[in-house]
């Protein structure tokens, strides 16, 4: 009888540990900064009456705690470092709810973690929005109407290609390279067709490719570094650098081809 109770208790502890590491894994793969991941895991652990030791790196999320019988350990691999702020917000609010004691059982928490919101903005709506944003970027850099129009058209093509390749499951670096190449080349063509000067052409290409700025990896990388999470900070900054370099290669390719063929 006592052995059965111990076994049941151990299973509950293991389940709690798994739930905490799952939360960490979801947050890490949705682009949350490291401090937020660790504090959310601690918050959930506190709500589950556990005092855990947790860690996050590029490889995965570790959660462990000591029991009289030994150590309970849970590890989850982080497959991708994506960006989904809806899920980050959802998980953060879930932890706050758990802290307030709004979940009655482990099943409820597990259910909440298994049914993450999968809301996406429709691509057909996002492409023109991002194209107008590129036009706004052109205006912010003192462009005239012709340049703004070229930037909008270039960004329309760039974003369409980006979403198409993303849907086909290509690597992100390849997507950035190809979409920057085609988008900036088209922006250049549109600008030249409207008789825009060299400076205007430069602005059109620049505004078109600014929609590829990897804002979250870049700023989260710095946030991690300043809060002492050096390894994840460097990983995120390197990720941002690789993406920026991919876009730069695409733009350089477009410029070289335009020069070569005298476009």
């Amino acid at each position, binding site marked *: 009888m006592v052995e059965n109770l111990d076994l049941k208790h151990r299973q509950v502890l293991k389940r709690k540990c798994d739930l905490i590491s799952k939360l960490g894994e979801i947050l890490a793969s949705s*682009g949350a900064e490291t401090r937020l991941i660790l504090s959310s895991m601690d918050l959930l652990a506190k709500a589950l009456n556990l005092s855990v030791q947790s860690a996050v790196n590029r490889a995965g999320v570790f959660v462990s705690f000591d029991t009289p019988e030994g150590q309970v350990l849970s590890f989850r691999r982080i497959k991708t470092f994506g960006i989904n702020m809806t899920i980050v917000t959802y998980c953060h609010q879930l932890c706050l709810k758990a802290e307030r004691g709004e979940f009655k059982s482990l099943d409820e928490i597990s259910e909440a973690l298994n049914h993450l919101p999968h809301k996406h903005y429709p691509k057909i709506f996002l492409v023109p929005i991002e194209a107008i*944003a590129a036009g*706004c970027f052109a205006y912010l850099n003192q462009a005239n109407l012709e340049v703004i129009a070229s930037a909008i058209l270039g960004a329309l093509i760039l974003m369409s290609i980006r979403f198409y390749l993303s849907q086909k499951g290509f690597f992100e670096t390849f997507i950035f390279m190809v979409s920057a190449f085609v988008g900036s080349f088209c922006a250049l063509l549109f600008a030249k067709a409207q008789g825009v000067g060299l400076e205007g052409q430069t602005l059109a290409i620049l505004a078109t490719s600014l929609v590829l700025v990897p*804002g979250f990896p870049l*700023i989260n990388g710095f946030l991690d570094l300043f809060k002492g999470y050096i390894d994840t900070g460097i990983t995120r900054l390197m990720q941002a650098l690789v993406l920026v370099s991919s876009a730069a290669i695409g733009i350089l390719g477009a410029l070289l081809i335009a020069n070569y063929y005298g476009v």
Partner: protein
Amino acid sequence: MSDTLFRILTEGLCAAFVGPAFAMLFLVPKRYLLIIATSSALARIIRQSLYLTDTLEIVSATFIAAAAISAIFIYIAPKLQVPRPVFTVTSCISLVPGLDTYNALLALISIIHGKHSDLMAESIVLLFNHGMRAFAVLLAICLGIAIVPLFFYRYRYHHL
């Protein structure tokens, strides 16, 4: 002066569109887009008000704009129960130094294809000038967002 004011306000309006557009790419929930539009416009207006009126140079102006946005969301984000970077990162996108980065890239190409030493020397100067300015502005955005919460870190931790 009225031209400058008009420029600042129209740039604020454009930034109010750019911020939510990026936020949608990062899948920020719909109900926060209006807040991001406002803060994005505010960030741009603060930066340009300081820069276009010759009060400060671009790097310091950018730092102050990013720090102001970060400070605002230290109070607003916990009330909305949303992690702060959801707002701060998207609000500061309109401060990204695009033109300098691109000019640095063009200068780099000129160096690679340069045949005359005078032109190459000029390109090297341009590369460093634009490259360092772009890097400094980018660093100012990141520092502006990252440093301000460090002052409130203990306070926020206890209230989390």
